[in-house]
């Protein structure tokens, strides 16, 4: 497809379990972002990848959160020992370059921790 693809669309997990969320950016996009959208709130920046540079992890809320990106392609966001407050929609976006260009968002993964 031509857009940013995220999987799964929905994930229900038990408290304490680990989850892995996947993002396929638009081909050729060097910049990739993860945001979190809690119910009734705006998007919170989590992490940013640009090419082969070290990622900006400044938005990750705790050390239970981590993310990887393979080159300029797929990224995975991992949440270990999930907590109920991790329930949110996790959105991935990509862009041609980091600055002054439009970022295109995927449809998100809705994570519910029960």
């Amino acid at each position, binding site marked *: 497809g031509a857009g940013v693809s995220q999987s799964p669309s929905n994930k229900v997990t038990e408290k304490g379990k680990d989850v892995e969320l996947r993002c396929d950016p638009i081909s050729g996009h060097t910049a990739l972002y993860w945001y979190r959208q809690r119910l*009734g*709130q705006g998007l919170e920046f989590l992490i940013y990848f640009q090419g082969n540079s070290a990622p900006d992890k400044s938005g990750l809320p705790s050390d239970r959160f981590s993310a990887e990106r393979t080159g300029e392609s797929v990224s995975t966001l991992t949440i270990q020992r999930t907590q109920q407050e991790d329930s949110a929609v996790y959105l991935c976006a990509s862009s041609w370059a980091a600055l002054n260009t*439009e970022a295109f968002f995927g449809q998100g993964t809705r994570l519910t921790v029960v």
Partner: protein
Amino acid sequence: QQQVKQSPQSLIVQKGGISIINCAYENTAFDYFPWYQQFPGKGPALLIAIRPDVSEKKEGRFTISFNKSAKQFSLHIMDSQPGDSATYFCAAKLPNDYKLSFGAGTTVTVRA
């Protein structure tokens, strides 16, 4: 600490009416102010954006008004249509930065 404050949280407007959403910011260094439109089950999509060197930008039925001295900007949806029913987010970005600071969002419902 929310850097961009958005209001109202929700609004209902009749078809053909005007929807107005307001945002206020504190950091005067912000130099890019986009608005995103999000339909249920979809990711946000860029709708329109403005830089602080202009006071107004119009694209079709959507207009951004920008008041630099008041540190406020707003989105006006003219002749609102049922297809405009969505959640709208304002955002702001610093120069040479890649992170967007988002408002909390406004759910707009346009009644036919």
